[in-house]
């Protein structure tokens, strides 16, 4: 004997499904509201303590947020901040751009030809391990104090992580996939296009992520040591004249710049290589 189980009407199931979806959405929204509430509360506390403490100590040592905000307004309205930002971003762009444009192809040649590998691997690794700040005085000696020198300093900071990551990407390509390409009689060029390059993309993006961070460090250092321009010099000048509140402005701008750029490269990595987020399932 068989028992029949009463079946739900289609309309019923649909109604239940919708109700469930509403519940899920509600839970998600509550979670998001809670997250932002905590974040804002935390920010309010940090700013509050900062304001209280910053106002109570010697203004040469520290500055409260209100004063920093005031200086921020002044520096924007007199155009100094905008000018410094443009100067900084110019050398940053040139240095990082050159690191990408030269670094990636060089790394690919390096990965592809054993002879190049033997010839340059030692230098690249040694330079990558060197604290590049030590080379800055030398670079200034060679290239002067201008945009050129600054760009070269930033380039030297950014190029090594890009170079090494791209190299590792091209080297760590799955030999099975290279074999697949071979079995379909791919030419060398086709193998690069269909297998080696795409497989290196997540590595290149990771190198870019590190390279951007290091380029920012290089930018500030270059502006500390070379001619008077950019956000780095703004920090230095304010510090030398004991205008602490003013000093915080370019620091916060650089901080925001770093957060945005690193976020952008992380997003780029997710966008260009969605499969690499799923490595475990391959």
């Amino acid at each position: 004997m068989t028992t029949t189980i009463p079946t739900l009407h289609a309309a019923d199931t649909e109604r239940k499904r919708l109700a469930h979806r509403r519940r899920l959405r509600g839970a998600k929204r509550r979670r998001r509201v809670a997250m932002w509430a905590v974040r804002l509360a935390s920010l309010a506390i940090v700013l509050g303590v900062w304001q209280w403490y910053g106002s109570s100590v010697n203004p040469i040592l520290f500055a409260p947020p209100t004063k920093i905000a005031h200086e921020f307004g002044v520096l924007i309205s007199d155009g100094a901040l905008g000018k410094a930002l443009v100067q900084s971003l110019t050398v940053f762009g040139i240095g990082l751009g050159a690191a990408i444009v030269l670094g990636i192809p060089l790394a690919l040649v390096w990965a592809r030809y054993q002879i190049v590998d033997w010839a340059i691997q030692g230098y690249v690794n040694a330079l990558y391990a060197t604290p590049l700040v030590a080379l800055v005085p030398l670079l200034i000696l060679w290239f002067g104090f201008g945009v050129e020198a600054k760009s070269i300093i930033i380039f030297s900071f950014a190029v090594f992580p890009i170079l090494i990551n791209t190299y590792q990407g091209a080297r760590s390509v799955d030999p099975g996939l290279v074999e697949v390409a071979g079995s379909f009689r791919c030419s060398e060029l086709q193998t690069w296009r269909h297998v080696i390059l795409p497989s290196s993309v997540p590595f290149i993006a990771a190198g870019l992520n590190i390279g951007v961070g290091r380029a920012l460090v290089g930018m500030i250092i270059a502006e500390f040591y070379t001619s008077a321009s950019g956000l780095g010099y703004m920090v230095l000048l304010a510090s030398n004249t004991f205008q602490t509140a003013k000093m915080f402005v370019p620091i916060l701008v650089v901080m925001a710049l770093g957060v945005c750029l690193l976020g952008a490269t992380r997003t780029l990595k997710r966008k260009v290589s969605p499969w690499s987020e799923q490595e475990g399932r391959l």
Partner: protein
Amino acid sequence: MATMPAEHPIEETAGASVECHRVEKWFGELNVLADVEFSIEPGAFVSVLGPSGCGKTTLMRAIGGLVPIDEGEILINGGRVSGPPKEAAIVFQQFGLMPWKTIYDNVAFGLRVAGLGKKETEARVRHFLDLVHLTGFEGSFPYQVSGGMQQRAGLARALAVEPQLLLMDEPFASVDAMTREVLHDELLGIWERDRRTVVFITHSIDEAIVLSDEIFVMSRSPATVVARIPVEIPRPRRERTVRGLPQFTELRERCWDLLEHGGAEEAARS
């Protein structure tokens, strides 16, 4: 030789012939293939059965021109293999799909590499996706679909270049048992229609019997073909019906004996 049941004669075959003459292969000091000698008729489905690690995959890779052999020669349609031959396409054990390409682009891969026109490529890709029941998954990436579907794409990619010789390297070893049975039946259906020559590498006796016209049993390393067992089960076949036949049990026993004789019992049981 491959034995065809009378009710399904081959009028014409899209298949290639394969011959191995005294093939020998060494990996350093290790003799992997010794004196491998056989020939496969155009349009035959041959399984190469042997214990894991015996060198059967090396044999397939040698036929596919992916590894050079040290002695002897391999001929496809009478031409000596010295690199991946244009007649052959391989279905890989680990699927070998490009994770950065969609299912569609993976299946189109061989056609694009060969420089086929856009229209023709699209028509063929659609046809073969349909054949392996992947229509609707064109835009998915391999990691978004199941292992069985990934191997369907691997099969479609190989079939799309219309090879005369299909080399299959334990293609269903990494999918679950239920999916494997479905894929066996689909492969049988596809193969029975156009009869390309197939060299199917496997360590599963059952799989070899269900699919093949003939089974080459290989010995342990150094591997050589120790027996050729014709499978005279009429086609069209389907896994469930074949498994119920008395011939199936007989063939199974024979293969077992041969493999045990070759000292390969533990491997074949896996």
